[in-house]
């Protein structure tokens, strides 16, 4: 999604994408390295979280402290994340410091010190991060439902598993960095205020290498949908739910997006109205579209006190089913306006744009223009959305709950 797009591919295959933005003094950039959770060898779940920490503990000729001071000295706001496909490291900063920041990131990616003593600290923090998840049932339930829903290994937790983190070694992790920081499959994105010609020259200088062999394709194993309950003596039952839908490459993609918005786009959408406004069952309730390159789903969360948890799940599932029974023109219009407006509001943030062009390129192999997306949203109608829903009835639901009470998941008839 871009109003105008800069694009260049280095000889080794590394992709450089840029979206210039008027009227901003900031820039945001990100390196998408093909080292996401699903790309890791078996038995190393959580290595991504360790890597994200370890590579910042010294690089090039700088030790951990000097590197951190250099990054902070540029006033940059670091953003590191691990998802199913990539480790993304990047930052938002004042545009004047962009070139210097990219030099530091080249050191971090290509010349991290990777000292053994620092590995132990990074690994301990990753283990602590998994323990801390036990005290955040809302986040945990969504990680668990994704793990259950997506074919293995796509849904692997980016935070990791304690037992696998405990056996992870510095050697094994170095090997992962060597294999998976594959420049030929890396996407670099920048948005905001920048000069693309000088970025290309700088990147050629820093990252031009011989082409690297592509990573082996991952083998997917599908999972049967099921219900899992994790007991926790908390105040609420946290419900996570997912069901399959079409991917962004599908021609029905925009109908699916509008359908999800009718269900949970704004405060007048169905879930908010039925679950919260009419029945007072929840404070937090919502569904959203979630996609990977290989599969996509509609993801729903609700948190509710134990005595209301069964009714909450029943009402949510009934709303999913009721969707294909009929949708009004007004509901579709509101969903469309909401999607279009969000698109434009997000286009004002350089961080959001740098992320958006990268994921478009990875998932679709190209970056969609703002105009294209607007037109495709505009082209949907109540008929097209209903047609889509009737052809693609919701299949089984994967449900995970965390809390003091287990609930029943009705056998779903598709």
């Amino acid at each position: 999604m871009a109003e105008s797009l800069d694009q260049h591919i280095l000889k080794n295959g590394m992709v450089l994408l840029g979206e210039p933005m008027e009227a901003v003094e900031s820039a945001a950039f990100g390196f998408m390295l093909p080292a996401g959770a699903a790309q890791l060898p078996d038995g190393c779940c959580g290595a991504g979280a360790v890597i994200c920490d370890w590579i910042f503990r010294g690089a090039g000729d700088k030790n951990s402290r000097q590197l951190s001071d250099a990054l902070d000295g540029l006033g940059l706001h670091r953003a590191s994340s691990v998802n199913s496909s990539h480790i993304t490291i990047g930052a938002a900063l004042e545009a004047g410091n962009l070139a210097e920041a990219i030099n530091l990131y080249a050191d971090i990616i290509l010349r991290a010190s990777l000292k053994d003593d620092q590995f132990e600290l990074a690994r301990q923090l990753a283990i602590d991060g998994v323990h801390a998840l036990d005290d955040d049932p809302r986040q945990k339930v969504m990680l668990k439902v994704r793990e259950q829903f997506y074919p293995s290994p796509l849904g692997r937790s980016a935070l990791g598993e304690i037992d696998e983190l405990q056996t992870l070694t510095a050697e094994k992790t170095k090997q992962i960095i060597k294999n998976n920081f594959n420049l030929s499959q890396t996407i670099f994105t920048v948005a905001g205020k920048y000069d693309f010609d000088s970025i290309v020259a700088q990147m050629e200088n820093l990252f031009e290498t011989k082409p690297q062999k592509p990573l082996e394709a991952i083998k997917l194993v599908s999972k049967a949908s099921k219900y899992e309950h994790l007991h926790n003596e908390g105040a609420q039952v946290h419900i996570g739910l997912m069901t399959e839908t079409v991917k962004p490459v599908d021609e029905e993609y925009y109908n699916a997006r509008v359908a999800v918005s009718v269900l949970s786009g704004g405060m007048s959408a169905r879930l908010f109205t039925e679950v919260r406004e009419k029945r007072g069952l929840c404070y937090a309730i919502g569904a959203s579209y979630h996609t990977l390159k290989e599969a996509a789903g509609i993801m729903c969360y609700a948190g509710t006190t134990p005595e209301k948890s069964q009714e909450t799940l029943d009402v949510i599932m009934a709303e999913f089913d009721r969707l294909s029974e009929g949708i009004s023109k007004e509901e579709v219009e509101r969903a469309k306006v909401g999607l279009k407006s969000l698109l434009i509001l997000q286009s004002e943030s350089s961080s959001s744009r740098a992320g958006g062009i990268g994921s478009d390129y990875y998932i679709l192999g190209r970056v969609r223009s703002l105009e294209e997306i607007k037109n495709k949203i505009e082209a949907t109608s109540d008929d097209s959305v209903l047609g889509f829903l009737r052809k693609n009835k919701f299949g089984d639901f994967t449900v995970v709950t965390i809390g003091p009470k287990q609930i029943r998941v009705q056998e779903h008839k598709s």
Partner: protein
Amino acid sequence: MEFKKKKLTNGLAIIGEVNKSAKSAAVGFFVKTGSRDEGKQINGVSHFLEHMLFKGTERLSAFEVNEAFDRTGAQFNAFTSEENTVFYAAVLPEYLVEVTGLWIELMRPALRDEDFDIEKNVIKEEIAMYKDLPSYDVLDRCRSLHFDRHPCGNSILGGEESVSNLRAEQMRDYFTNRYAPNNMVLACAGNFDWDQICSIAQARCSNWQKQAASRKLKDYAGSKKKSRVEKSNLAREHICLISPGVSAQDPRRFAASLLGTIIGDHVGSRFFWGLVDKALAEAATMLFGSMDGTGAFYSYIRCSSENVGKVLDTIRDIFRSLSESGVSEDELRTAKNKILSALVIKNELPMGRLVDLGFNWIYLKEHRTVEDDISDIRAVTVEDVNSLIEKYNPGDFTQLSIGPVQSS
């Protein structure tokens, strides 16, 4: 960027910062009321009222309100703090007038009994949700411990009991006193037409009745008490520390903010190098929060039960070294870079700009440009920060922890 202001005869302040090159616009009502303005009996009423404003007016039902917002594609919501209730929306410029009109209408809500009863359930669910978020729960409890009998210690959400016992009538009384035009600011930022916004406000808000809405302003140094709460379902120790700081009206607030960053930014701070880098704590941050007439430094640390002793010793050492040797030029320079770039990035979005614009008017009755803030931050010296440390001694804090049951 052009600043505009107007005051209606009933005291409603209307302010705007017009930026014709923005792709969006943001609008908000800033109401100077929050949990500190509540008596114990009605604790939670400000936050409950924030919910009730979405429940409609004599003309609109709750569903019609939600529909009306969604028709514009607005990203809209509201939040309540100890001392402010803010209603806001970010929209495409062509919808700003419509959304502003809607907010104006909602500022005179119906507050119907039947909506009140249903929404009470939603509020109780929200209270339960935050109980399951120990990082929030610990802050809420520590704030009460720190502020003790000072009203800033009141819980924002209120307790299960005070919310259960609250009556719609009490809420209506509170509303009449607190949502008075002289206690509110209407602010806009981004790409919009100032004259149009002014004339709507003039036409539709002028009949709102002025009230004697006041607030007790008292600074408070904090109780410095220490306490621990056990919860059987927790895996980690969550520690909150609060020490006193300067108010939102105090020019030293920029130095205080820099001190918070030096001690507890999530990377590269004293807490980071002493606790997180060494894997003693998985999270350790400090933030400075200024309020009306008072202020505080809030720290949050998350670690394993085994590490609590070492973590607290390290924190003691960090504060001791700060009071003995102060901060360095390098630390201050780095903290300035971080705060300045965050400020610039945030203010590039009309929604980000709206928040600063509104709060500056609430606290200072003053328009400050982003450049004003930048130059005040740049002007802070090591001596300014060190004299704050001396005066407020962040090492002398109130402490509350929530963690698993101890086996001993």
